[in-house]
């Protein structure tokens, strides 16, 4: 009897250890969310700054008590959009190349390179951008500045490659061989098979990669900070304009800010948070709707 009881107790304890571990993730999520929202909503609740001016302002001058983030928001969107527009096609074609076209040796080599690319710390992407891309943009820029939306887009486009490539490649290689055989047996060429059957069949996996890529691009801070220019005002009007994404705004000033200034940096975080949630949600919905049809 005693032995059975002890065994049961042991089981219970082990089970609870698992549960506690699982709780760490959930509690962290709740804690971060609460912390950011609590601090970030304070200035609007206590009316120390107007929500409207915060969301629609195009100047960020803490010295003059001006805290507008609309231009940052626009900058974040343009940078992400640009990175996706350039990075995703390159990534998908690379994935197709690895999964469908390259021989096993070349494929392995490229896959290895992609894995290394994923492991490079983001500050090094930033340094690379600053050292190579920014001077190049400076040469062609009519505004005589290298730090710009364009430089940011290029750095981010490279940064999202590993994520999108490896997830797309995985989902391409899980497309059943039967689909390919069916297609070839109907007289389709290799390229037709890839674009009309294999890629559509891998669509939901590829979209997952793209969503994660979007997440990475929006959330990226360190690399972007070095190449974006971080202006204190102005909606970007061309790809050569400087931008100040939401993320870098927080990182640049959080270290020394105090009072309302600090709280509004948290508010910037809230906007970022909601923005990412909305994007994840809509893209997920879009993918589901398409796959369902």
């Amino acid at each position, binding site marked *: 009897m005693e032995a059975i009881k002890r065994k049961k107790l042991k089981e219970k304890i082990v089970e609870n250890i698992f549960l506690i571990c699982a709780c760490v993730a959930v509690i962290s999520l709740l804690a971060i969310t609460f912390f950011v929202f609590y601090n970030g909503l304070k200035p609007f609740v206590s009316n120390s700054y107007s929500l409207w001016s915060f969301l629609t302002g195009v100047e960020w001058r803490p010295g003059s008590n001006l805290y507008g983030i609309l231009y940052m928001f626009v900058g974040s969107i343009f940078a992400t959009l640009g990175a996706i527009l350039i990075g995703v096609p390159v990534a998908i074609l690379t994935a197709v190349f690895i999964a469908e076209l390259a021989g096993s040796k070349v494929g392995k080599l490229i896959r290895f390179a992609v894995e290394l690319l994923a492991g490079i710390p983001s500050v090094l992407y930033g340094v690379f951008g600053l050292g190579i891309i920014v001077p190049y943009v400076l040469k062609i820029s009519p505004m005589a500045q290298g730090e710009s939306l364009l430089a940011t887009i290029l750095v981010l486009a490279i940064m999202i490659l590993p994520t999108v490539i490896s997830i797309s490649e995985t989902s391409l290689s899980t497309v059943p061989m039967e689909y390919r055989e*069916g297609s070839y047996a109907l007289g*389709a060429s290799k390229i037709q098979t890839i674009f009309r059957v294999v890629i559509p069949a891998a669509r939901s996996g590829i979209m997952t990669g793209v969503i994660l890529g979007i997440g990475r691009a929006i959330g990226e801070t360190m690399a972007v900070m070095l190449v974006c220019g971080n202006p204190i005002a102005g909606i970007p009007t061309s790809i050569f304009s400087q931008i100040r994404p939401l993320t870098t705004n927080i990182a640049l000033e959080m270290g020394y800010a105090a009072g309302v200034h600090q709280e509004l940096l948290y508010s910037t975080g809230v906007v970022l948070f909601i923005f990412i949630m909305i994007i994840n949600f809509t893209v997920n919905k879009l993918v589901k709707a398409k796959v369902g049809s």
Partner: protein
Amino acid sequence: MNKKIKFNAKNLDLYYGDFQALKSINLEICEKEVTAFIGPSGCGKSTFLRCLNRMNDLIDSVKIEGEIIFEGQDINGDIDVINLRTRVGMVFQKPNPFPMSIYENIAYGPKCQGVKDKTQLDTLVKESLVKAALWEEVKDRLNKSALGLSGGQQQRLCIARAIAMQPEVILMDEPTSALDPIATAKIEDLMSKLKKDYTIIIVTHSMQQAGRISDKTAFFLMGEVVEFNETPVIFTNPADKRTEDYITGRFG
């Protein structure tokens, strides 16, 4: 009545790496007949069938020697493989409709050949489905996913998809092995109708099926064709002892 020969395999050897899966196959397959391949598992039926539309090209380790003459040309030579596959269609053991609508599944092959005209595609889709005895069941849901069909319907869709290419030959690798008796009966019925217009070659594990639907039967054993003759002869008066053992179920 002398029928035209559609495929003529001469001394065909096939290797997967070092393993010889087909040994000096000689076989003449006549036009507008149903030819059945029977034999125990692993004897090379599928391998040979896949030679006829060059599907083995997809497997890197395969090496082929000997000839298969199709319409006067050796298809193992330097030929237009895509053209061959448009003329020699294939239906697989496991129904493999693409994850697209029923309509798109059937229009896929013709579209890949450059057919764009909507009315032409519409007629082709309808005709193929009618021929494959599926039209009545799916005509109201052409734009629904093909994956929502039952197994038997999916297999008939795959047949319709092959028919839409207006091929001369249809290769079928155990097309009914995943189906219940009713769906099987429908497909067998379909084959006897299709043979008026097409040359059909079918791999089957069911002696009854071979007996019911085929004109000629080839018995494969360990990579060789042991016996090839009119189906009634194979089943009632086989020349080779091994054939007799196999069809009577005495085969080890």
